[in-house]
């Protein structure tokens, strides 16, 4: 960074990518450290429980840190800080939904799921149902959510590369996406869940520490006074509205309803995200699962409080127009703030953390998708649970991980530059519609039957995806994925407000209207297992 003082947009745009070698060097150190951790982890990865669930040997606090690593994606780190810097208060609203959602996981899902299942979400959903159809449905839903989430992460990588490495042409960006994807496949293949968990832990510590240092730095500049910081953000933005709600969602009645719909999907979606649910199997018992969520809530809450300061800090110190003019737009707020505060070194650190974030989140999604295919579809549906050689199942999981990894690289390259921001919202909406109703009904409603589960899962998935396809997010608006076409008839970009209640209703109707009766003995067994932890899978010993 040859120009420490920044005055104009274009100049900053250069400095943001001004020391790509430094940025890459720091990222290289991260890769080296995590690779060592992954190789160490691979020594103990032999059985299916090792590969899928890290031998259930992580402590609650370790898993809690890993969960925050999995959950705090690039979208929530760069995206929320940027949204606050540009849209002010409305950006802050996201983080509240993302945090409060964890109470659903804490109170209703985490412990009961840990006690009942072994490796995947489908283990729990199919426990007292007809195995094959429910497993297939749960697996399709798992793969869909993981795929949408994965594509969103990879598509964001292109903009990040332009911003942080100064690579503007598509070929160069595609090569970097492929390298990041290949690294991720390597992590998952070598380290399995244990290696992936260590990557999440290292990344979460770096991310939260980096954001924490920046937060204190910003606050110190304003005498540790939040009110002065807000005042400075107002002065720099030239509008007081940055402190008030409505800048982004208050435009019309439709945008307000859209936001309400998003808020519902965020708060109910988290506890239905398969890659989050799978993390609860990496601890030895339900008490540690409870402790995991407790740690996750503290860390995620703390982190979102940091992003509030960072967002308004970026608005005050970097300035709204400069952020919008930089490559990467809104996402550049946090990196630009880092450059302003600590120069190239802090920028390099934050850039490396941003790449690490994509790497870690994608690795978590890949292992979830591969576990669901190998364990649910291959071992339990195709081989009908009669697979003698457990190694074969792990082999299939590894092959699936490579396939998922390649698909995500190709998808990331194809989606690079496309407006696919709706994919994260879609993943949450599908998780809240197709997964959460079935999870809650299976755990708490005795009468719930196979037909109800199938109606709710397929119905939830189908309705959510259909509404998105015919929404302004895909066609018929300037910000759509296909701005040139117009086949939209559903007015909202976030389908949750319609799809979530309908999915609950479908689960109810499917149960009361069909003739199939629940297996009462299995329900009793499931309830005793879920609440007491009797017969739950123990940690493997090495």
């Amino acid at each position: 960074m040859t120009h420490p003082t920044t005055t104009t947009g274009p100049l900053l745009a250069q400095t943001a990518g001004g020391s790509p070698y430094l940025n890459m060097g720091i990222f290289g150190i991260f890769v080296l450290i995590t690779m060592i951790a992954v190789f160490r982890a691979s020594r103990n990865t032999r059985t299916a429980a090792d590969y899928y669930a890290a031998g259930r040997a992580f402590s609650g606090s370790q898993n809690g840190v890993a969960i925050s690593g999995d959950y705090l994606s690039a979208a929530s780190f760069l995206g929320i800080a940027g949204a606050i810097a540009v849209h002010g208060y409305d950006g802050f609203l996201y983080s509240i939904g993302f945090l409060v959602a964890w109470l659903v996981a804490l109170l209703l899902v985490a412990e009961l799921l840990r006690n009942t299942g072994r490796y995947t979400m489908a283990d729990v959903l199919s426990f007292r149902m007809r195995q094959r159809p429910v497993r297939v449905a749960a697996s399709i839903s798992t793969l869909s959510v993981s795929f949408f989430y994965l594509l969103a992460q990879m598509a964001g990588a292109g903009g990040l590369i332009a911003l942080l490495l100064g690579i503007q042409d598509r070929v160069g960006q595609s090569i970097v996406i492929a390298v990041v994807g290949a690294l991720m496949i390597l992590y998952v293949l070598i380290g399995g869940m244990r290696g992936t968990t260590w990557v999440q832990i290292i990344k979460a510590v770096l991310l939260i520490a980096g954001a924490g240092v920046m937060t204190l730095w910003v606050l110190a500049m304003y005498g540790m006074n939040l009110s002065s910081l807000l005042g400075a953000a107002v002065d720099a933005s030239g509008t007081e509205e940055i402190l008030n709600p409505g800048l982004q969602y208050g435009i019309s009645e439709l945008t307000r309803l859209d936001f309400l719909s998003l808020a519902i999907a965020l708060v109910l979606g988290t506890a239905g995200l398969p890659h989050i649910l799978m993390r609860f199997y990496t601890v030895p018992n339900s008490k540690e699962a409870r402790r995991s969520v407790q740690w996750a809530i503290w860390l995620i809450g703390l982190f979102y409080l940091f992003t509030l300061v960072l967002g308004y800090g970026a608005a005050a110190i970097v300035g709204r127009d400069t952020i919008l003019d930089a490559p990467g737009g809104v996402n550049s707020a946090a990196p630009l703030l880092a450059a302003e505060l600590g120069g190239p070194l802090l920028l390099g650190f934050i850039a490396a953390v941003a790449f690490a974030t994509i790497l870690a989140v994608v690795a978590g999604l890949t292992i979830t998708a591969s576990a669901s295919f190998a364990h649910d579809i291959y071992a339990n549906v195709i081989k009908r649970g009669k697979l003698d050689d457990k190694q074969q199942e792990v082999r299939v999981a590894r092959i699936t991980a490579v396939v998922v990894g390649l698909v995500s690289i190709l998808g990331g390259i194809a989606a690079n530059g496309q407006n696919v921001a709706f994919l994260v919202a879609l993943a949450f909406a599908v998780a809240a519609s197709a997964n959460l109703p079935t999870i809650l009904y299976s755990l708490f409603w005795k009468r719930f039957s196979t037909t109800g589960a199938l109606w709710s899962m397929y119905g939830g998935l189908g309705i959510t995806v259909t509404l998105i396809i015919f929404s302004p997010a895909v066609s018929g608006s300037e910000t759509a994925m296909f701005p040139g076409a117009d086949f939209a008839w559903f007015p909202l970009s976030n389908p949750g407000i319609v799809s979530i209640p309908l999915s609950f209703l479908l689960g109810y109707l499917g149960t009361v209207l069909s003739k199939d009766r629940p297996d009462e003995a299995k329900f009793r067994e499931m309830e005793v297992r879920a609440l007491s932890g009797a017969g739950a899978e123990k940690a493997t010993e090495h």
Partner: protein
Amino acid sequence: MSTTPPDDGGPSPTTWHEAHESPDFVELRRRLRTFVFPTTGLFLTWYLLYVILADYAHGLMSIRVLGNVNLGLLLGLLQFVTTFLITVLYIRFANRRLDPLAEAVRERVEGGRG
């Protein structure tokens, strides 16, 4: 999980049935449900109320309370506080009121395995 008992000769359906009817388990389920259902209702209502206020009552939320900190920001930070508070309360409740009963039920089932 298959529909047949696991290979390690896990507890029989009768064992599960008896555990399910045991006073310890009935009390465990009652305690869990009387805590988590009302609490979930409470925090979801409070969250929705906050979202609707932020979404529709811009004037109210823009009222300054402390310096530049307005009511909207204050209520938003209060969402963090209530989330942390519910977490702490639930952990205490689960450690003291749920875990001992869960352990009793678990021992009953797993001890019966021989």
